[in-house]
């Protein structure tokens, strides 16, 4: 089992963490994502702390804090004594397997198509919302992002994030864009909010949405559109990267 962990695609999971700030968070996210995508399987043993800290290029203090956070989320468990160590516990949610399969089966061109369409709809909705939103509607957008920030489960995050995009389209005064956004959310919302493998870090989603609201408030239409497109493109890139990791893992297993 330990050997399987070392054969990961490009060892990307345990590649050095180069982000200077919030290292614990970055390590947690990297490992949680790998577990969510099934890149490290349920029951796999993680390398010993010293070894893992060295390969991630973080201190053992940082690594221990990260492992504690993962333990709290139920993604790893630590067993003491002989044969002990830190072991992966895959998410119990059966939908995770289904979502992984979908993400594996979608081609990168299909993911790009979805991304292009989302950017077209949400980008235009943001531009028009900046021209047409009322004060009440802006207040509603703030309220939805507050809910997203306070959310504690992936389901709550997915609903609040979906609601944000739908409310922006409604603020654009367009029934058709709103309808399209509802369809998009039901089609890809689950993929974007894969348990423990969010396409974009929830805090970054909150930050990005607040910037869009700010642009809408001051009626900067082009800025609202650009910010929205950039945010969605980041999400699409991550989904394509997840897809890539899943398919390269399969290649490895078939060899």
């Amino acid at each position, binding site marked *: 089992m330990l050997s399987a962990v070392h054969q990961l695609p490009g060892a990307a999971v345990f590649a050095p963490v180069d982000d200077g700030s919030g290292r614990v968070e970055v390590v947690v996210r990297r490992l949680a994502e790998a577990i969510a995508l099934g890149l490290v399987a349920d029951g796999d043993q993680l390398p010993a702390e010293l070894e893992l800290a060295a390969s991630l290029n973080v201190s053992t203090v940082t690594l221990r804090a990260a492992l504690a956070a993962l333990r709290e989320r139920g993604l790893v468990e630590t067993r003491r004594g002989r044969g002990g160590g830190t072991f992966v516990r895959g998410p119990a949610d059966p939908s995770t397997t289904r979502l992984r399969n979908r993400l594996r089966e979608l081609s990168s061109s299909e993911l790009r198509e979805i991304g292009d369409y989302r950017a077209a709809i949400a980008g235009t909705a943001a531009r028009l919302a900046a*021209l*047409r939103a*009322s*004060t*009440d509607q802006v207040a509603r957008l703030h309220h939805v992002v507050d809910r997203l920030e306070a959310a504690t489960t992936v389901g709550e995050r997915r*609903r609040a994030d979906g609601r944000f995009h*739908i409310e922006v*389209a*409604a603020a654009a*005064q*367009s*029934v058709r864009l*709103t*309808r399209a956004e*509802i369809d998009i959310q039901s089609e890809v919302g689950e993929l974007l909010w894969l348990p423990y493998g969010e396409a974009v870090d929830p805090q970054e989603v909150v930050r990005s949405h607040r910037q869009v609201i700010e642009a809408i408030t001051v009626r900067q239409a082009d800025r609202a559109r650009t910010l929205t497109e950039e945010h969605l493109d980041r999400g699409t890139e991550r989904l394509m990267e997840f897809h890539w990791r899943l398919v390269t893992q399969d290649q490895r297993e078939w060899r």
Partner: protein
Amino acid sequence: MSDPQVAHVAERVHAIVEDVFHALEDIRTGMEACYRSHPSFTSGDLAAVRPQIFGCLRRLHGIAAGTGVIVAPGVLADRPRWLDWWQAPPEDDPIFLDVDLDPESLDFYDYTAAEWFAVPQRTGRRHVVGPYVDYGGTDTYMLTFTTPARVDGRFLGVVGADVRAARFEALLLGVLAACPTQVTLVNAEGRVVAGNSPRLPAGSLLTREGAETERLPDPPWSVVSEARERAVKLA
């Protein structure tokens, strides 16, 4: 009111709005009577208000897309929330609007937060909302007219009518087309309800006050007229 064209628009708006609210009166009195005559008021008892609801739909034929009652939480003995709302397809019998009223559900239709419910509840007065994208219920660009129902000071809910924004605009077409200059009807938040120029389509925001603004009393809308010509020159 110096501009007679603007006065015509204001009169026509007033006439349509009064027509709608007048037609709703029957439903309101029906609902209040229904509440009084049932000590334990249930959703089934609301069947007694159906004749008034269907009568209102007939009266507002070609104007309202739907009418009905929306009950305040806690008023009915058998259900925490309830809508008895009927939509009017042309040439057909009314259709019951089925929405998800389970608070645990993804599609929960939380109407108590909606402006058309919350404002009459708070003010005790009738209210017009829109135009807005009604994505929870009908997926239409809509105006909603509501008025509170009360018995002995207790708020029972609202009775209301939906008028499609496109239909409302069509009803004003005659008076708007008669204006040679740009005339725009805007709601309290400055959103165009109807107008006669491609520069300002319904749903857009009028951010700058026009040369002349005629304020309407109820709903607190305005008719904004500008000196420039209505039409946009076509190349």
